[in-house]
């Protein structure tokens, strides 16, 4: 049989028509590269800026004021708090409200002028090692520049000497700067998204696809019963997975859990519920398993990119942060890092816990409204 262009044309045409009618796939294919490009191009900032910083100034002179202005203007730091010490800065770090604390010691100006070494103290939340190394470099450059600029007039002669200061870095929570410290807590979250959003939506859409849903719904069952019945096994699977990850993290990678284990598992349970709700939502929207899978990928992708799981959250532009604030993983990453690496307690993680609660409640209520036990 000869190759027929007529047949080929008919075949291509058929594929195009089918593709055109499969709106979900088409939208996905168009949107995915655009979304990816936007994320990689704009949102993901490997060279983060405006990272929240607290300043403790024990020395109020023209030089230190100028130094603080310099920090403010250079762009790497964003001074959100001025604190007086008294362990206040420790709390800010633990809660994740600031990533850095810059401490200017007593007599800093006097020591610089006298040419005696004086040290700026940089306390850093080192759970994210990339952000820290940038901060050290930035602080060094800024301080050197400010000092050389400010030393003029009678003090001008000091300019030529090497600036008499140093920077002491205190890396809190992850002194060795292990990237895995940063990744593992969030990885629990990513795995739970797989289990929750993806693995839950599949069996539900399978019921619809195979027609068994019709049978189930013709029986005297309540929507809530179906929902709980579908969800319960996955709650246990999710808890088990978390346990495995924590176990491996502890004994293979020596990643400790400093905080309360039951608090951690309480938060994990909440996050599992959140993802199961999303999975259920997907399954009510998807017509078949393929669509459900595609939709789950759509949930997963921004969760990896925009939540601070891989790249520093505060380093992203504002609009990307706003999207990130709507994604549950954003809060879970902060909670898990807080409890595991910083030993955070309930009051420390509360600012991240209540948005997660809110998301779960909203999705669940919405779903109970949407989900019917009819085929309409």
């Amino acid at each position, binding site marked *: 049989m000869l190759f027929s262009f007529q047949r080929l044309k008919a075949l291509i045409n058929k594929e195009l028509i089918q593709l055109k009618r499969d709106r979900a796939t088409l939208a996905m294919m168009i949107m995915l590269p655009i979304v990816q490009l936007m994320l990689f191009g704009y949102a993901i900032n490997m060279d983060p800026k405006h990272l929240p910083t607290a300043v403790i100034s024990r020395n109020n002179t023209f030089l230190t004021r100028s130094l603080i202005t310099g920090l403010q203007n250079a762009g790497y730091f964003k001074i959100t708090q001025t604190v007086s010490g008294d362990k206040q800065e420790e709390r800010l770090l633990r809660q994740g409200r600031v990533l850095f604390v810059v401490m200017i010691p007593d007599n800093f100006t006097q020591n610089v002028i006298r040419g005696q070494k004086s040290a700026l103290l940089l306390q850093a939340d080192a759970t994210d090692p990339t952000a820290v190394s940038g901060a050290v470099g930035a602080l060094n450059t800024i301080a050197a520049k400010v000092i050389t600029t400010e030393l003029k007039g009678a003090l001008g002669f000091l300019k030529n000497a090497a600036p008499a200061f140093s920077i002491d870095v205190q890396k809190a929570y992850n002194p060795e700067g292990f990237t895995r410290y940063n990744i593992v807590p969030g990885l629990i979250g990513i795995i739970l998204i797989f289990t929750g959003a993806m693995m839950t939506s599949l069996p539900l859409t399978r019921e619809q696809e195979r*027609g068994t849903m*019709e*049978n189930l*719904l*013709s*029986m*005297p069952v309540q929507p809530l019963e179906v929902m709980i019945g579908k969800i319960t096994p996955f709650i246990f699977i999710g808890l088990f997975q978390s346990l495995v990850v924590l176990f491996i993290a502890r004994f293979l990678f020596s990643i400790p859990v400093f905080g309360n284990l039951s608090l951690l598992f309480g938060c994990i349970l909440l996050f599992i519920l959140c993802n199961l709700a999303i999975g259920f939502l997907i399954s009510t929207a998807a017509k078949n398993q393929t669509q459900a899978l595609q939709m789950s990928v759509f949930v997963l992708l921004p969760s990896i990119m925009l939540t601070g799981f891989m790249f520093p959250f505060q380093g992203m532009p504002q609009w990307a942060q706003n999207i990130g604030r709507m994604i549950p993983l954003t809060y879970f990453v902060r909670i898990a890092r807080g409890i595991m690496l910083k030993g955070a307690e309930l009051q420390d993680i509360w600012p991240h816990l209540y948005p997660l609660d809110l998301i779960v409640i909203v999705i669940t209520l919405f779903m109970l409204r949407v989900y019917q036990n*009819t*085929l309409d």
Partner: protein
Amino acid sequence: MTELAIDVKRLTKKFGSRIVVNNIDIQVPKGKIYGFFGPNGSGKTTTIRMLCGLLTPDAGEGTCLGYDIMAQTQMIRKKVGYMTQKFSFWDDLTIQENVEFTANIFGMDHVSERTREALVKLGLQHRSDQSAGTLSGGWKQRLALAACILHQPEILLLDEPTAGVDPKARRELWDELGRLSEDGMTILVSTHYMDEAERCHELIYIAYGNLIVRGSTQQVIDQTHLKTLE
């Protein structure tokens, strides 16, 4: 006047702007086999789904076993057995698991005993661990029927139960329906086979969502000049 198991009036269902079931009245007397006759796409499945609460009618009113078809669907579901056109039990569960599941959903007591009885009656007790998906078409259909009457429903709704089933199995199914009817069960069965229609006590003939004719089987056959192809 005979007591009615199903009594609905002006039942209407639209999908978008398309009227699938148009203003149909159905009165099914208790204990009878009521045939729902018509070509493919005539609205038989949609009507049956509305009767058991799977679809909400756009218009119409009525009762099924005395329960309102709009408001009391949950009660109706408990007393009705519905056998879907396509095998809709769980392929990945074993025969026994499917029956047990059904018994539990209907809140039956002595589930394992009742399951065993049902399997013996089916003649599937030796294959109870076989997954339902591996059964042949005829056996799947027998399993589905057994599971649908497990909770002893007062009404049995069957949507083209003999589609894709060999003649012998078809005859056996109709013999079984006859026995169930003699025991007092009301049966509503949709079909597009004339010989099956002839085995019903009463018939309703619908085409494209509209009621064409109703009455006793003989009346319908006489009025429509339908003939059995023999």
